């Protein structure tokens, strides 16, 4: 039987859901126009008044907001409530320049918690589960976000935060963790560490569910994680500018459910900003419909995805996005060809001899872009005949060439020699910067 956190909302007939969304969109637009100098100025410049937004389709008339806007208005220039109404700040360190600050009213935190409570229920996490939250706690949204969601559904939280992996594995065994929440690369790191401690996550723990996110990971990596550790691995999605982790897939693992009563999503062409037909790959754009402190209007998240409005087999009517296919700005342009690290990962994970660890190095040699994919040697792939290894390198190179339409140099490297990340994995080294 399928369980819902809020069956009324989650299974609401599409027509009703659209009506609800439309009302919330109109009130959000009015709300930001009245309360935020930033939005008023932006709307005025675009020649838009709140009353111009009459239907859901009118959303395309609204101007986009960007990460840059959050940095430019640092720290709280875009906020719609005075600071004394805030219950919390989260801060994400920007890779360029100023960090971004996101404020939450008590109600914002409640909405955030509700979103995750629905998500966790949809993957079967609830009372009786022990959730080990190995996302970072603190200014980063991952840890606290999942923590609140887990408590809301009645689970027991083990707030380990990230790091100290051996201890984490001990606690996982001793306290009977059933659900891990962390980045997929950290989970792989953990699996390896457990193995070196003589512990099999499959046989020696109660783990059954993983809530993995904060970095893109492929379908093949999921298959591998599920096979090696015997758990069901679910994708969690969110971004610090909205409120960290918010949404997951349901048990059908067929797209991430985005709660339409809280968020309005579009997928646009990343270059032109023009909305794309459903099913086409483009950049995700989100408008918040329930946020008080920092509502975002047509926010350009920078993630690539595909939108699916078909109701899900689980009975939920809210739209889904296909698993995030990488960041718009992670895209590498090599000899004029667009390459996403996720594509490379997909190819590699389909080759049984290739292990989990790889690294992409891009360089410019004699005015020509050269991409090298380094793969760690595994016991399973090792042959003591030089030709066998060269053949494996050629096999991988030709599989990559087929998918990317690009000649790639493949190098097998020593097991354990590529950097293991504790959080987000650094899979691309671009040496071309000059």
């Amino acid at each position: 039987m399928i369980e819902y956190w809020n069956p009324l909302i989650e299974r609401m007939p599409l027509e009703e859901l659209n009506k609800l969304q439309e009302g919330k969109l109109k009130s959000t637009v009015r709300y930001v126009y009245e309360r935020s100098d930033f939005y008023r100025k932006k709307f005025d410049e675009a020649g838009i008044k709140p009353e111009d937004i009459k239907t859901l389709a009118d959303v395309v008339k609204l101007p986009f907001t960007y990460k840059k806007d959050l940095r430019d208005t640092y720290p709280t220039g875009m906020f719609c409530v005075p600071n004394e109404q805030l219950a919390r700040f989260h801060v994400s360190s920007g890779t360029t320049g100023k960090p971004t600050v996101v404020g939450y009213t008590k109600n914002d935190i409640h909405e955030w918690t509700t979103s995750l409570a629905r998500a966790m229920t949809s993957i079967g996490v609830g009372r009786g589960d022990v959730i080990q939250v190995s996302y970072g706690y603190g200014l980063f949204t991952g840890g606290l976000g999942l923590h609140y969601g887990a408590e809301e559904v009645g689970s027991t939280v083990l707030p380990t935060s990230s790091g100290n992996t051996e201890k984490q594995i001990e606690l996982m065994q001793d306290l009977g963790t059933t659900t891990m929440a962390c980045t997929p690369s950290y989970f792989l790191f953990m699996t390896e560490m457990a193995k070196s401690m003589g512990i099999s996550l499959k046989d020696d723990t109660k783990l059954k569910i993983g809530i993995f996110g904060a970095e893109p990971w492929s379908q093949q990596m999921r298959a591998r994680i599920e096979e090696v550790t015997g758990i069901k691995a679910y994708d969690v999605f969110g971004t610090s500018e909205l409120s960290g982790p918010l949404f997951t897939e349901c048990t059908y693992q067929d797209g991430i459910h985005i709660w339409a009563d809280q968020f309005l999503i579009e997928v646009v062409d990343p270059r032109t900003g023009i909305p794309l037909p459903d099913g086409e790959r483009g950049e995700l754009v989100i408008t918040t419909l329930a946020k008080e402190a920092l509502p975002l209007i047509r926010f350009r998240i920078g993630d690539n995805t595909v939108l699916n409005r078909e109701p899900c087999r689980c009975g939920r009517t809210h739209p889904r996005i296909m698993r995030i296919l990488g960041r718009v700005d992670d895209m590498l342009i090599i000899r004029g060809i667009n390459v996403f690290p996720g594509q490379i990962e997909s190819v590699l994970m389909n080759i049984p001899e290739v292990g989990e660890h790889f690294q992409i190095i891009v360089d410019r040699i004699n005015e020509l872009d050269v991409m090298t994919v380094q793969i760690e040697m595994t016991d399973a792939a090792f042959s003591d005949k030089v030709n066998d290894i060269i053949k494996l390198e050629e096999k991988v190179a030709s599989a990559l060439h087929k998918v990317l339409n690009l000649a790639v140099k493949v190098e097998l490297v020593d097991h354990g020699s590529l950097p293991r990340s504790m959080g987000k994995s650094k899979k691309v080294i671009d040496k071309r910067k000059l």
Partner: protein
Amino acid sequence: MENKIIKQISLFSENKPGRLANIADKFRDAGVNIRAFTIAEAGDFGIIRMVVDDPDLAHEVLHNSGFTVSETNVLGVEMVDVPGGLAKIADVLGKENINIDYAYAFVTKIEKALLILRVNDIGAAVNVLERNNIKLVDMKDIEDI
């Protein structure tokens, strides 16, 4: 036949300085003695092949140090004249359609030349070589040299 098979240690290594010294250190600490040693290089990587007095211990030591390592079954032939001997062996095996994957020779402490061979059908190779009166060494001989 079994006792004519020598367990060779093979390991994968990027061509990086310091790797060999590292292996030598590990073996010294564990009391493993290398009898024969060769590196097959191919661009960015190499395969180090070794005959040691205690292959199981060597395998464990290297594996625990994080190397990608395997034990490979090879044959050892004691010979007086290496080039001539190799030609004869290749000839004898070739007639039976047995391929030599690789071979390397080294001189023992007691100044005998030893040829190590990996073939595609080790059982058949032992049979053929013995029929042709080519003497194969065993693990016991390796420990003693």
